[in-house]
């Protein structure tokens, strides 16, 4: 479904991905963990076609993302949604207008149908009361849920989550993590989650991969990661000061 084949990416002299390989199956939730600034978001953006590799290939359902024509990219993106770290809601629009955006801009549905779908998605995420509020009037957790409602409007097969729980309190983090699980359970969505929140990673992931030094140093089930012998992974998941990882 999603495949990275020997992907290399550098920004100036800084090598972020160096021979990155990964294969995510249909309906699977894969979590990439790693330090801040290590390149997790860079990897995620390659799937969305927002970044292109220096070399290597990124495939989504067998279609090569890097080098895809604008038409092919549009078709791919119609089946894909990204939950950005900040929510990326349009500030001057209400919650309802933000959620309606993917459909209202393309004018594929009558307004009544769009309104019905907006109510349905907001109801699903328990946001009915916030419909007429603007993003500045709602909390961080609500923003993430509104952004998720907007993603769901186009019924995507793939959802990419960029740090979905960052900046949220533990309860709200669990609410968002549960929603990610729900998306997989109820809609069969394939998910790529990028996070350094280990509690959330263990809760949502079918498999977890640790990104370090430009590649995945270990990939395994949550249980395998929890009981790992790999010094890098062990230091990271336990938050230990001593070990091979140095603060960047």
């Amino acid at each position, binding site marked *: 479904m999603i495949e990275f084949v020997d992907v290399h990416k550098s920004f100036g002299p800084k090598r972020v991905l160096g021979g990155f390989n990964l294969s995510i199956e249909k309906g699977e939730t894969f979590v990439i963990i790693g330090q801040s600034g290590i390149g997790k978001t860079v990897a995620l*953006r390659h799937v*969305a076609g*927002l970044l292109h590799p220096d070399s290597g290939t990124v495939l989504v359902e067998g279609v090569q993302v890097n080098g895809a024509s604008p038409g092919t990219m*549009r078709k791919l*993106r*119609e089946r*894909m*949604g*990204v939950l*950005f*770290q*900040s929510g*990326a*809601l*349009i*500030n001057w629009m209400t919650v309802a207008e933000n959620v309606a*955006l*993917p459909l209202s*801009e*393309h*004018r594929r549905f009558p307004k009544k149908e769009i309104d019905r779908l907006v109510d349905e998605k907001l109801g699903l995420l328990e946001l009915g009361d916030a419909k007429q509020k603007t993003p500045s009037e709602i909390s961080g957790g609500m923003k993430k849920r509104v952004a998720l409602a*907007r993603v769901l409007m*186009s019924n995507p097969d793939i959802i990419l989550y960029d740090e979905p729980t960052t900046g949220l309190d533990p309860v709200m983090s669990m609410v968002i993590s549960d929603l990610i699980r729900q998306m997989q359970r109820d809609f069969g969505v394939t998910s790529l989650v990028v996070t350094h929140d280990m509690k959330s990673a263990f809760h949502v992931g079918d498999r977890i991969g640790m990104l370090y030094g430009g590649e995945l140093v270990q990939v395994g089930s949550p249980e395998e990661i929890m009981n790992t012998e790999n010094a890098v992974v062990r230091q990271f998941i336990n938050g230990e000061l001593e070990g091979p990882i140095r603060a960047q």
Partner: protein
Amino acid sequence: MNSGINTTGRRLGGIFELIGSRVMEFLDQAGYTILLLARAFYYLKDAPPKAREIVTQMYFAGVKTLVVCSLVGVFTGMILALQTGIELQNFGMQYQIGHLIIASMTREMGPFMAAIILTASVGSAMAAEIGTMKVYDEIDALEMMSISPVKFLVMPRVVALATMMPVVSIYIIVLACLGGAVVANSILNVSFNVYMKHLYKGIHFKPIYVGLLKSFVFGLIISGVSCAYGLRATSGELGVGHATRSSVVASFLMVLIIGYFITAIFYG
């Protein structure tokens, strides 16, 4: 001796490299802005559904700048009347002040003043707003929804500013004429009737349409430059500040340079 020559050579090389990189940066940004404006023109076909956004932007450019435009207009006319009126008085020709004010305002000052105000207030806000959207992933979110940021953000702003700039220019010209009338009447002892008579005499078709054309072009330049800098903002809040500052400087320079060439084409 040789090491001295080498050091001078390296310094010269460094200067040329710096100039070269700045020229390349300028050309890159200019090319990007021209392409952005071309794409905004292409999306004019989608202007009717975007009417609400266009009207909102027109409101920001016109109504929100009304107070500052009024003050700038009145005081520009008053200063112009005072400075030139005193000189004209030496030749006993102060009654011509109305003619002089309308001529200078329609030919140059009106569009230029409007451009300065709207660059500082509206253009900078556009660059900051779009720059903030860029660094907070909102532009990427639009791309992911297959919504063109040019259609969604740039086109309405270009249409609004290109439309409002001539309106604001005319407003400033009218208020400058009124400000000039106050000074003419109170300081230069030119009656209102005489002032208006000479002012009407100074109204010609060519300066008006050239002035309006200038305003329209300035509107395109300011909106295009501001949106381009906003869309290319990087590195968080610092990048937004940099994009805003650069957009204001570039807009001012482009208004001056393009303004000169329009004058040269029509009056040269």
